């Protein structure tokens, strides 16, 4: 890791190639693991691994700042939330939740088709000599695409691109940035409201009284008996996830 951290920003070197292939393999393998592992927690861990390798790839893309943000937000927050929910609900196995054969064939065929299209589109113009990033890359021939590289775009003392990104965010993209802040606020409020779980705590007078009107509306949504069953199970399960696994 040490070595990696020091060599990664150097564009065009063999180190980059090695690092790329290592992380690419990890990323693809973990991605396939995510969609194929039956155990949800294993899938989530694989997804964390995938995110970390994406973070590594960001390093080779001269975007160290993004790399750290990737680890911090995806690895540190989003996936923890995922695992938290999985464990809260105690649903780490989904043996019964598989698609039927026809759907599987169709899905894989469609995915393969799209993947083929991607390969078809990028192999060639983007995989030529000229597409090796860096200021000293050869001029692109016809049908080839050049890669400028970020090294000269960054400030002298800004190897990670934090300044580079920050300047853009606070100048060109001010309004999107503010909108993103608003979006986060709204999402927070929405999550708080959704997480009230008033229907499960009828004995709690405070909440029942506060939300009597809203609860009336929601009662109509309860179209089948599943909710009642879930509530029962939740109360009885006490420690989530304790009774589900078979070893």
């Amino acid at each position, binding site marked *: 890791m040490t070595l990696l951290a020091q060599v990664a920003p150097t564009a065009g070197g063999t180190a980059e190639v090695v690092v790329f292939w290592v992380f690419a393999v990890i990323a693809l393998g973990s991605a396939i693991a995510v969609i194929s592992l039956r155990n949800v927690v294993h899938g989530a861990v694989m997804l964390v691994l995938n995110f970390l390798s994406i973070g590594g790839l960001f390093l080779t893309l001269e975007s160290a700042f993004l790399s750290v943000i990737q680890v911090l937000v995806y690895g540190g927050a989003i996936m923890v939330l995922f695992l938290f929910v999985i464990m809260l609900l105690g649903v780490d196995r989904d043996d019964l939740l598989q698609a039927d054969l026809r*759907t599987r064939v169709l899905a894989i065929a469609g995915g393969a088709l*799209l993947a083929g*299209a991607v390969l078809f589109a990028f192999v060639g113009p983007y995989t030529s000599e000229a597409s090796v990033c860096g200021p000293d890359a050869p001029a692109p021939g016809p049908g080839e695409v050049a890669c400028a590289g970020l090294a000269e775009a960054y400030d002298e003392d800004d190897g990670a691109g934090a300044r580079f990104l920050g300047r853009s965010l606070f100048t060109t993209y001010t309004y999107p940035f503010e909108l993103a802040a608003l979006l986060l606020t709204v999402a927070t409020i929405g999550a708080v409201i959704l997480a009230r779980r008033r229907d499960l705590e009828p004995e709690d007078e405070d909440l029942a009284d506060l939300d009597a009107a809203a609860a009336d509306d929601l009662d109509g949504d309860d179209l089948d008996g599943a909710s009642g069953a879930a509530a029962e199970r939740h109360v009885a399960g006490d420690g989530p996830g304790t009774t589900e696994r078979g070893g």
Partner: protein
Amino acid sequence: MIQLAYAAGEANEVIEATSGVIGAAWLVPALPLVGFVVVLLATRTLRDRAAVIAIAASAAAFVVSVAVAIAVLADPASYVRPMPTWIDVGGFTVTFDLLVDQLTAVMLLVVTGVGFLVHLYSVGYMHGDERYPRFFAYLNLFLASMLILVLAGDLLTLFLGWELVGLSSYLLIGFWFEDASNASAAKKAFVTNRVGDVSFMVAMFLAFATFGTLEILELVEDAATLSSTTAFALVLLLMGGAAAKSAQIPLHVWLPDAMAGPTPVSALIHAATMVTAGVYLTVRMSPVLVASLDAMTVIAWIGALTALLAALVAVRQDDIKKILAYSTVSQLGFMFIAVGVGAFREAIFHLVTHAFFKGLLFLAAGSVMHAMANRTDIWRMGGLRKVMPVTFATSLIGWLAISGIPPFAGFFSKDQILTEAYLHGFGGVYVVGLVAAILTAFYMSRWFFLIFLGTPRWPADAHPHESPTTMTTPLIILAVLSAGGGLALNPVHSGPLYQFLAPVSASVEGLGLTPAGPLTEAVLIPVAIVAALVGIATAWAAYLRRDVSQGVVREPVRGPLAELFERKFFVDELYEAVFTRFGRRAAEVMVWFDTRVIDGAVNGAGAASLAVARTTRRTQTGGVRTYVGAMLAGAIVVVAVLMLQVR
């Protein structure tokens, strides 16, 4: 300075007046309008005291009108009182400017004067009605509308008043709308007036297309430049509007039915003021009229036929107010005779005297009905002379005035119309008018004899009595005016009113009219008097000489012709057969079209959407993965298309 095309006298000077008495002329319509609003808003709080406000408003309007009239009399001119602009679109400008001249002054006095008296009369007549304040509000609205009509300096503003008058007339005819026949009478009046309004509007379109303006003074000024065809069309279109408002054949059918309204309304609106709006309009536009002699001839004949036929119908009516209603139609016919033969000033003169004596007669009829507990059959009356002395005396004067007995007002005005008709070469019109005059004397005598003279024939439960002072006072005032009005205003053919109105009346000298025969005025006047006397004498022989005893209908003559008169020439039935049934059939066709074609198209569109939705909604499986699969398919298609384009 504009030189107007009035050549009957010295032409008027046009003066813009923003100050002084003329400058305050806007108060005349504004006062009753304010009264209307205040009374309407304060109905609940003021209750019966509301009437005081309404009467004060009409009295104030009358006072201002008198002041305006005096100002015009003192310094004759066409005054324009600038007011705010109403419409200003492109080159088309309509203002609320007021036009005050001699004609306006006369009309103002008549409208506010009779209006005030009717307000006063209504205090007694309408006493105890549950919508008493509202009645006064409507009266004020009518007064304001009529004054806007009279003062308007622009045809469109005039039309605004014209329509408001129609509206208030509608409201007042249907004042007792609980009775379905009253409501339908109101509707009939309204719809019939719409026919005329269309004509009037087309006239305005034509006038605007021709002159590029609707300002009355400019129209009048440019009238001489009209081509004969345009003038003919314009005049007849204007006449169409006037005929509806003034109940001329064939649009007279609403007026007799309008008697369903309270009697003061009949007196004010359907005898003295509103129905004369058509006459006012035609006289106001007289320079346009004289541009087309053919059109004037048509007008004269319409007037003559109206006068004759309405008189014939009046002969066989039994309702105390219906007789007066048809009499009004007949008298309006006389006015249009005058307009048609070019005797515009005589038309206004008759308008004024008619307002006096017909207002008087209606109020007297109201007084009688009041006494007889709203009974209207004249065969159930008789001998009221003794119990209602004031009503009897005033009615006597009204009867003599309308019959054309000198020196009462009606004699002078009616005689001058007939004389002018003869002298302007309308011999046929003269003869018809003379017959109508005889019939007038006859049916009014019948009316008078059967009500006031003879033996009492009223039912045992009727207790006739004299009306209260608020009702008799207007009667007396109007009686005085009916008695002396003609003599005072225009005793001879070139009296003071004649002179006064000269600058606003178009001259017919240029039309080359010659007398219809060798007779002179010295012969024609005695003829008219004799005609009136003949009518009275015939009535006396038929209804008073014989004893008409209680409960027995004693029409001396019966037969198909009498039946025809009694059934009003079957005009209503004819209209029913032609227009109503046609309208119903048209409506049925439209209903069929609407339900089958239009609704069919709408429902078909709905059904088609439903059918499409029913099939396509199957794609909405609600399953997330289905949607993702569809998106994948879409993405593949898009990528494929893009690659095909690139490579």
